[in-house]
């Protein structure tokens, strides 16, 4: 009786799972397999069905990815972008999280305020900032010149030397909230006793932070950092809208899409996509191992 019941429950489990699994297979597994396959072909956007197998030509060939300077520039840009945004976001996010972790009147209000940049569509925040960064009429140049920080207005989204800095600035604004919330969740799980003990002993708050808080939330912090890094590596929207497909701010995603759609070289673009996928996959494994994600509860 009990066995029959279990068997019928397991059967219904698979029945319940099937619709979700079919959709995931259709939108995740199959496109991924196709993309990897296409990276070994000379497929063109207009005649994808006539693609011929070319082996590793797209990767190692004379005109392959590994010999393309622009590809390596975009790899370098992506790493540069990831390193700087994640570092700045961690420091700022930690500050915000520490503030939100305190109880004070109006805390709910500032938590809501912090969520606003996160909720704003990336395209919209790119447009809002590109208006604020406008070389002639932008408020940032205006403030900078008035305060004497800038000698002359800067062309934030036109000057090749400033493109990446602008992108980092906007991304930090947009994603620090998310970082802060992840760190806050970690902070709120800490035992209160440690702090009370430290307070009684009259330890300086800065010392408490470095000696007690930081070591205790390190696991949560590491997970948050990797989570953010994975997101930063695939950045596309912000750069595409803020600075376009220009070399100084070209990232791997921007590069891959340009090859795929604008240049219609599906095989070659798929090769770039595939490399990006494996980089992210490697980091994901790292995330799961470090995060020691609780699975299935058994």
């Amino acid at each position, binding site marked *: 009786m009990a066995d029959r019941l279990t068997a019928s429950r397991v059967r219904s489990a698979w029945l319940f799972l099937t619709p979700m699994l079919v959709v995931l297979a259709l939108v995740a597994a199959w496109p991924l397999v196709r993309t990897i396959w296409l990276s070994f072909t000379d497929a063109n956007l207009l005649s994808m069905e006539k693609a011929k197998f070319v082996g590793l030509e797209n990767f190692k060939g004379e005109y392959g990815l590994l010999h393309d300077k622009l590809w390596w520039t975009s790899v370098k840009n992506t790493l540069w972008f990831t390193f700087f945004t994640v570092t700045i976001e961690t420091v700022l996010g930690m500050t915000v999280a520490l503030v939100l972790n305190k109880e004070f009147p109006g805390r709910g209000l500032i938590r809501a305020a912090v969520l606003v940049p996160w909720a704003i569509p990336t395209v919209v925040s790119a447009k809002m900032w590109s208006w604020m960064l406008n070389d002639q009429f932008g408020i940032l140049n205006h403030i900078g010149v008035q305060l004497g920080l800038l000698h002359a207005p800067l062309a934030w989204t036109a000057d090749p030397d400033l493109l990446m800095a602008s992108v980092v600035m906007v991304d930090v604004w947009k994603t620090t909230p998310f970082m802060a919330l992840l760190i806050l969740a970690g902070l709120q799980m800490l035992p209160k006793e440690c702090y009370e003990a430290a307070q009684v002993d009259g330890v300086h708050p800065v010392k408490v932070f470095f000696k007690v808080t930081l070591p205790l939330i390190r696991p949560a912090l590491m997970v948050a950092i990797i989570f953010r890094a994975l997101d930063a590596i695939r950045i*596309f929207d912000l750069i595409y809208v803020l600075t376009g497909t220009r070399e100084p701010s070209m990232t791997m995603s921007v590069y891959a899409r340009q090859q795929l759609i604008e240049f219609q070289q599906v095989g070659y673009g798929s090769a770039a996509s595939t490399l990006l996928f494996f980089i992210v996959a490697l980091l994901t494994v790292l995330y799961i191992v470090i995060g020691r994600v609780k699975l299935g509860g058994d």
Partner: protein
Amino acid sequence: MTGKVAARKGLFYLLVIAIIFYTLFPFYYAILSSLKTGTELFSVDYFPVTWNLGNYVSVFRDNPFATNIWNSVLVSFSTVALSLFLGLTAAFALARIKFRGRSLLLLTILGVSMFPQVAVLSGMFQMIRSLGLYNHLPGLVLAYMIFTLPFTVWVLTTFMRELPKELEEAAIMDGASSWTILTRVFMPLMWPALVTTGLLAFIAAWNEFLFALTFTLTNDERTVPVGIALMSGASTHEIPWGNIMAASVMVTLPLVVLVLIFQRRIVSGLTAGAVKG
């Protein structure tokens, strides 16, 4: 001593004000700019000088913006409905029934949520085209499942796992089918989690850009983010900033209101996937 405490308190509130200013000023400035027309736009002001709603009219006149909004509404609501239905049934199986391969399945789903969208772009493009969905809104809904489904399943599973066992035991004794248990016993308790995940899926679908840009071709099928990104003036050098700011404010205000109402739920939903696992 008290002076020191007061100074510390003052510094703390200064920091609070700085945070609020930093997070809200860009949006405030967008609202401010959207209310200015003509040459007023080219002078920097910190407070509203005029309350001119001209941009809010012209953005609909100069662009297919109403169509864009309607498309976004259709795509976002369909995405939420589909991912909640698929997520809820899958979460029931994953959270309440023990079977072999369950952990591996959860791990795979978590892995999919990390997929960079670009990594599947060409395969997805081919699939959408072969299904005849290129430049059609259902194609976008289907494509969006790749990022809404994993976290919907994940969050709903986490939530459903916490519900007490006794709930369904009585129902099983009465011979209720799994479907009855899910819809009659669990559904009524799941509303908080459904609201949270539905909201996150809605925001993700409403904001999505890469797929919407790649899988649509004509203005009739474009969603809001693509519409705003491609807004241009009479000449390429003449960017219609007033219109863009008005459009930005209009598509963001509903989101800001949702965030204000549901902030607690959003925070718990966002962190459920990452920190607590």
